[in-house]
C-alpha cells in the first residue's frame, strides 16, 4: 500500500512534522524610501477587489507598494503560522476569529490602539460590535473589513411546484417542540419518489427524492450553517463572555433541544440521516436538486445567485425562535505583524483597508459586505444592479438584537473538533444529545484550566 520502500520510513512521521517548519519564503524588503508590503488573504473571489484597493493606495502613497498573496483557506493558516514561526511573516494579513487568539497570545499581532488614537480613526463607523471583536484588554488587533450573516436559501422552482410561495417563507417561526411553521414548510417541501410531500399520510420516508431541509453536520463548535442560529433563537449562548470567555456552555438544554429537533427531522424523513448524508458540500447538493431549503451565509451569494448556479435560488430570513430571530454575524479584520520592519507603512495600509475609500471599492465589486455601513449599502446596490435580492442579509444585520457573534476564545480549533464530534455522535444516535454535549462541554472547559 505504500510507495515508500525504506523501512526507515517510520521516521517520516516525525519528518513530516518538522520538515514543514523549515521552509520559508517571501520578504518585504525596504529599498531606500520605497517599501513593499506583503498582504495575505484567502478568498480568491476577493482578490480583485483588494487589488483595486492596493492600486488606489499606491497611487496615493507612491513609496508603498502592496504585494498580495492569496492561498486557499485550508493552507492559509498553516502557511501563516509557519511563516510566523520562521520569523518572516507577511506585514499585514486577513484575520479571522477562530485562529487569531493564538496569534494574540503569542504576541504576533501589533497593538494598533496607539495608531487609532493618534489618527483618530472612528471605530463607530463599522457595523455594530465588529470593531470590539478584535480588541483585548484595551489593546486593538485589527480594523474590521467586512461582515457576514446567515439566511435560508431555497430552490425556487422546487418550492413553487410544492405549492410554496416566497411570502410563505418571509416570516417563519420555529420552536424545538413542534418546529413551528418552519417545520411545516420543510415537510411540504420534502418530496418522495411517488411525488407525495412530507405532510401526506402516505408519504414514504424510505424513498425521499428531495429533502425539505439539508443540514450541515461538519460545522465545528459554532453551527454557523444551521444549529447555531436556531439554538441562539432558543436562548443558547456559547460562552460566559464573548470574545475571550473561558467557560463554554454547550451543556445548555436549549442547545440539546435544538439538536433533538434536527434529529426529529431525520426521523420523519425530512432531512437525510448523517450516515446517509453526503461528503460533498451542501451547495453541490442544493445545486443537484437534492435539497429544498438550507442555511447559507452571505459569502455564498455568488454561489447561489451567480451565473454558474445550477438552479434558481432565493434567500429568505432565518426563522424566529422563542427568543426571536437570530443570525450569526461574523467579521474579518486586517492584522499587522508585530515583527514587521515597516510598522508605519503597514498601519497606513491597514487604515486604508479599514476606510470608506477602500471599502467602497470592495462594496462596488459585490463580493462581500464591507464593515463600514455606508459601504455595505454600496454592496447592496451593486447586487441589486445585478438583479440579485440579498436585502435579507442586510436587514438581519441591522435588526436590533437580531445577531450574535461567533465565539472567540483560545483553543478554538480543539473546541471545534470536540463539539463537532459530540454533535455528530448525537445525530448518529450513538449517544443522546444532552449526554454527548455535556461530555464535550467538560472536555472543552478542561482546556482552559
Amino acid at each position, binding site marked *: *500500500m505504500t510507495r515508500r520502500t525504506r523501512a526507515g520510513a517510520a521516521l517520516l512521521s516525525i519528518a513530516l512534522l518538522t520538515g514543514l517548519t523549515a521552509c520559508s519564503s517571501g520578504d518585504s524588503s525596504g529599498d531606500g524610501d520605497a517599501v513593499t508590503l506583503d498582504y495575505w488573504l484567502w478568498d480568491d473571489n476577493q482578490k480583485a477587489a483588494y487589488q483595486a484597493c492596493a492600486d488606489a493606495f499606491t497611487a496615493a502613497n507612491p513609496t508603498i507598494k502592496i504585494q498580495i498573496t492569496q492561498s486557499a483557506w485550508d493552507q492559509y493558516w498553516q502557511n501563516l*503560522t509557519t511563516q510566523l514561526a520562521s520569523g518572516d511573516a507577511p506585514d499585514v494579513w486577513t484575520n479571522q476569529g477562530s485562529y487569531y487568539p493564538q496569534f494574540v497570545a503569542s504576541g504576533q499581532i501589533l497593538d494598533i490602539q496607539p495608531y487609532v488614537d493618534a489618527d483618530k480613526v472612528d471605530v463607530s463607523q463599522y457595523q455594530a460590535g465588529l470593531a470590539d471583536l478584535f480588541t483585548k484588554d484595551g489593546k486593538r488587533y485589527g480594523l474590521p473589513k467586512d461582515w457576514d450573516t446567515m439566511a435560508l436559501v431555497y430552490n425556487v422552482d422546487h418550492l413553487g411546484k410544492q405549492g410554496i410561495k416566497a411570502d410563505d417563507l418571509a416570516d417563519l417561526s420555529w420552536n424545538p417542540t413542534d418546529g413551528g411553521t418552519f417545520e411545516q414548510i420543510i415537510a411540504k417541501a420534502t418530496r418522495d419518489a411517488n411525488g407525495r410531500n412530507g405532510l401526506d399520510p402516505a408519504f414514504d420516508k424510505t424513498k425521499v427524492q428531495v429533502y425539505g431541509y439539508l443540514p450541515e453536520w461538519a460545522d465545528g463548535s459554532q453551527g454557523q450553517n444551521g444549529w447555531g442560529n436556531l439554538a441562539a433563537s432558543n436562548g443558547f449562548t456559547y460562552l460566559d463572555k464573548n470574545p475571550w470567555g473561558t467557560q463554554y456552555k454547550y451543556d445548555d438544554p436549549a442547545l440539546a433541544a435544538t439538536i433533538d429537533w434536527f434529529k426529529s427531522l431525520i426521523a420523519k424523513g425530512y432531512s437525510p*440521516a*448523517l450516515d446517509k448524508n453526503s461528503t460533498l458540500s451542501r451547495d453541490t447538493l442544493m445545486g443537484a436538486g437534492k435539497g429544498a431549503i438550507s442555511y447559507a451565509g452571505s459569502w455564498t451569494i455568488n454561489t447561489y445567485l451567480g451565473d454558474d448556479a445550477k438552479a434558481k435560488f432565493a434567500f429568505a430570513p432565518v426563522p424566529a425562535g422563542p427568543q426571536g430571530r437570530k443570525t450569526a454575524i461574523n467579521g474579518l479584520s486586517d492584522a499587522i505583524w508585530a515583527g514587521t520592519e515597516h510598522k508605519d507603512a503597514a498601519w497606513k495600509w491597514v487604515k486604508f483597508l479599514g476606510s470608506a475609500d477602500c471599502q467602497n471599492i470592495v462594496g462596488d465589486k459585490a463580493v462581500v459586505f464591507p464593515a463600514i455601513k455606508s459601504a455595505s449599502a454600496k454592496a447592496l446596490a451593486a447586487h441589486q444592479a445585478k438583479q440579485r435580492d440579498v436585502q435579507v442579509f442586510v436587514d438581519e444585520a441591522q435588526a436590533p438584537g437580531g445577531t450574535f457573534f461567533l465565539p472567540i476564545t483560545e483553543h478554538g*480549533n480543539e473546541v471545534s473538533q470536540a463539539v463537532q464530534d459530540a454533535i455528530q455522535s448525537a445525530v448518529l444516535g450513538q449517544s443522546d444529545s444532552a449526554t454527548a454535549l455535556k461530555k464535550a462541554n467538560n472536555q472543552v472547559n478542561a482546556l482552559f484550566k
Partner: protein
Amino acid sequence: MSSTKQRDDRRAAWWFLAPVLTGFAVFYGYPAIRGAWYSVTDYTMLSTPAFVGADNYDKLVHDSQFWRSLLVTIWYVVLNIGSQTVLALLVAALMHRLTRSVLLRATLLLPWLVPNVTVGLLWMWLLDTNLGFVNHLLTSLGVGPVGFLTDATLAMPSIAAINTWAYTGYTALLLYAGMLQIPQYLYEGASIDGAGEWRMFRSITLPLLRPILALVLVVSLIGSFQIFDTIAVTTQGDPAGATRVLYYFIYQQAFSYFQMGYASAAAVFLALILGILTAVQLRLLRASTSDLT
C-alpha cells in the same frame, strides 16, 4: 582482486552514495532528531520550545482521543492489509500460472499511478450517498442508498477498499516478480506427481515466496499505519471520529491546534510502534532466509 582495488571501489561507492546519504541526513535524519526533541518540549510553533520532560507522553497516555485513533488505525490496517494481500496474491498467482501479458501488468499498475488525492476525490464522488454513481446503480437495483463514507461502521471499510483498489495491482506485481524467481521445474515435478494448482500454491509458491512476501507485508504495514491522504480528502476523520486515524490525529494536533510538542510525541509513539512491528514481522517471516537455498 587486490586489496588496493577493493579500497578504491569502496571509496568510489561512498562517492556514489554521498548524495543519497546527504539527502537522508538532511530530510530524514535531522528532522527526526528535531521531532524527537520537540516531543519533550511545549513547542507551539510560535513559542520558543521549553523542555517539559515526559509531560507530552503522559498526556498522550491519558488521551482517549489518541487511543481511539490508534484503534481506528489498527482496524484500518487489518482491513487493508488483509484484503490487499489476499487479493494481490490471488492476482499474482493467476498471472504467474496463466498469462505473461505485459498489457495486463500495465493495466494492473494504473490505479497505483493515480495520485492519492485524485484517488480520494474520485471515489468520494463515486461513493457519495446522494450524487454518487455507485449509489445510483445500487438504488436502481433496489438497494440503498448506502452511506459508504458517512456511515460510522462503513466509513473505514470503504476507505480500506479505496486504498486496496489503488494498491493491489502494485502489490500483485511485486509478488509476481517474486514468483518468477521460483524455478519452473518445481511446478513441473509437482504436476507429474499429481499435485493440483492449490496444492502447488500452498507447497511451492507460498513457502518460496516468503522473503518477498515479508518485504511486501512490512512495506504495506508501514504504509497502512501512515494512512492519511485518502482520509484528508474524503472524510476528514468524520463521522464522529470513526475515521480519525493516528496520522490525522497527529496532523490536527500539529497544524490545526499547533501543539507541535504534543504532535511530535504522538509521532514518536507511532515510529516506535512501527519499529517494533517491523522487527517482529521480519522475525516471524524469517525474511533473511529463503527456503530455496
